[in-house]
């Protein structure tokens, strides 16, 4: 009830609000005047932010994008964190495919992988909620739960002092999301859909994070090194300037690179 009341009050105020402080923002700003640290961090978009654009551009066959296997985990924490990222990204694909069984399977796998890196408690409720909401096909809520699971896992890792590991979860998710994105674009290439790959700030953000991992073992991990190379190879392929056309060959190359990297992450324990 209080939540409904709050939402109603907020809706009312935002709908009828007369600006209390009617100061028009400047039409243009000099971004170089902002301190570097203020604009260094970027919120990593969840895959569904891109997937819903693809839905608007066409009618992708999401079921065909789902992987049969969610990969195997090893005792290597870097691999588990990266794999967890790919599995959560898979959750967003399964939501698009509206496949309740796959979503439930992924929810359970998120829990298993979280246990392997001691953050199981953080996602216990989320995992249960994913299963319950998939059962009734409440896809909007399932999507929200996967987003929440991602944030909870990262927050729990940061609380344990494992900020490096939290970054790897994000990177793993981004790579799997990009693999799916490029798979769909290359099947029905248009310059509009390819423009979705123009993500220089994100690639730069991940590159910096991986270059500055404080944990030496993680920094020197083979998979992490492989991903550094992947990011360096992707950078020139995603367009330098906004609106620059990303050709179909680049999409195919990015797809192959991300597909191989996801396969490497998923088979590490095999």
């Amino acid at each position: 009830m209080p939540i409904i009341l709050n939402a109603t009050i907020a809706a009312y105020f935002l709908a009828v609000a007369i600006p209390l402080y009617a100061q028009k923002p400047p039409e243009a700003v000099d971004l170089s005047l902002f301190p570097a640290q203020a604009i260094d961090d970027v919120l990593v978009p969840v895959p569904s932010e891109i997937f819903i654009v693809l839905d608007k551009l066409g009618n992708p066959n999401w079921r065909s994008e789902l992987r049969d296997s969610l990969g195997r985990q090893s005792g290597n924490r870097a691999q588990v964190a990266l794999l967890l990222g790919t599995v959560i990204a898979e959750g967003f694909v399964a939501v698009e495919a509206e496949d309740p069984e796959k979503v439930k399977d992924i929810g359970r796998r998120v829990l298993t992988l979280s246990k392997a890196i001691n953050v199981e408690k953080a996602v216990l409720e989320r995992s249960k909620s994913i299963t319950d909401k998939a059962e009734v096909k409440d896809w909007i809520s399932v999507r929200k739960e996967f987003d929440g699971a991602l944030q909870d896992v990262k927050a729990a890792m940061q609380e344990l002092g494992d900020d490096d590991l939290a970054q790897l979860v994000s990177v793993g998710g981004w790579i799997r999301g990009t693999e799916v994105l490029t798979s769909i674009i290359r099947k029905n290439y248009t310059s509009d859909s390819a423009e979705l790959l123009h993500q220089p700030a994100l690639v730069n953000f991940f590159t910096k994070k991986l270059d500055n991992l404080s944990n030496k073992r993680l920094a020197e991990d083979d998979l992490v090194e492989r991903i550094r190379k992947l990011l360096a190879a992707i950078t020139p392929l995603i367009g330098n300037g906004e609106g620059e056309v990303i050709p179909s060959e680049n999409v195919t190359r990015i797809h192959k690179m991300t597909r191989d990297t996801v396969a490497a992450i998923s088979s590490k324990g095999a």
Partner: protein
Amino acid sequence: MKKALVFLMALLIGATSWAYVDDALSFAYEAASPYVKKGFNVREDAWGGDLGVKDQQAVQAQLFKGNEYWFCLGTDVKGAVLSVSVYDSKGNIVNVETTRAGRLSAVRVEPQRTGTYYAIVTVHKSPQERTGWALVYAYK
């Protein structure tokens, strides 16, 4: 002993900072709630911090052409006036619609290009020296 005191002080300051960012976050989610009814998905991730009066902070966001976004700002300080505006990578404003009421402020954006955008948070006035703020965004 001295070290322990410094540690305790740091813990206390840390806990206080988190508390007001948490409160500001509740207001940011409240600002976003009307858009949920309109089919927007609110992200669970958020930006936050504190600023002095007339201070600004820019945060980076990757936005996708084809989506519509609401950036929703909240503060824990009663009587404070904050705003958020969104600019493209060249520094040009891309706000389509803005609303502001009390501790809540929001801006709608429909990116014409996929790429990097900057949400700039400004504290116009506040009864306090530092004003906690939190920013979330919703997309559809």
